[in-house]
């Protein structure tokens, strides 16, 4: 069964981690969220999102 065949495991490892660490995080990071994330330990969570000032 070819899906269980280990080789070429090192090439697959290096190539997939290269793609995984270079391309995807830059795409994920460029998504800006208006609310800063609050830790679980915070007393009061800032839940309201941005609204028109009036």
């Amino acid at each position, binding site marked *: *069964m*070819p*899906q*269980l*065949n*280990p*080789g*070429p*495991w090192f090439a*697959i*490892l290096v*190539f*997939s*981690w290269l*793609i*995984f660490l270079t*391309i*995807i*995080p*830059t*795409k*994920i*990071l*460029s*998504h*800006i*969220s208006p609310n800063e*994330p609050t*830790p*679980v*330990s915070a007393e009061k969570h800032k839940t309201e999102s941005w609204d028109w000032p009036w």
Partner: protein
Amino acid sequence: MMVSFFDQFASPSYLGIPNIAVAIALPWVLYPTPPARWINNRLITIQGWFINRFTNQLMLPLNVGGHKWALLLASLMIFLITINMLGLLPYTFTPTTQLSLNMGFAVPLWLATVIIGMRNQPTIALGHLLPEGTPIPLIPVLIIIETISLLIRPLALGVRLTANLTAGHLLIQLIATAVFVLLPMMPTVAILTAAVLFLLTLLEVAVAMIQAYVFVLLLSLYLQENV
């Protein structure tokens, strides 16, 4: 010539380039990168919502120390779900059916969580090897069992993803072959089988998403024990 049903899992080469490399490198052009300004289209908005809500849900049970993993885990989710879903299209190769790729992700990430636990809080990390309130005669046996279950985790993580996707692709191919073979002999049965094939395809779409989520969720649970 009769080909084996498992041949679909061997990465074909085209012009000397293995398809597994293409299937890992290229899908990311499908995701538009948001601009530096706060102006979005629908696709970018839904992407952003997915990433932010997912990260929020995943990080809720974690301590603050574990929040550094948010980017890594969100990236992993996008990576796995994209490859799983695109692999369901006909004539495509699915890299996540390869055990070597899945182990290549499972082992280093699991090892990172274990090393973090052993380095920052060795007492608590080792404490997970013995549940509280164990009767004294059971202690040696239980520590051995818990150690084995700790060490088997990366194997289970990689094999789970491989087995689920492999089984799904095999079932789809088996039932599709059955439809083709049955069509000239028993058209009614063939149509019924085609209906089953459609339902199975829906199931496999769900499995592709669920298994990517399960992989990331389990990693976050291992991290939770160690931060």
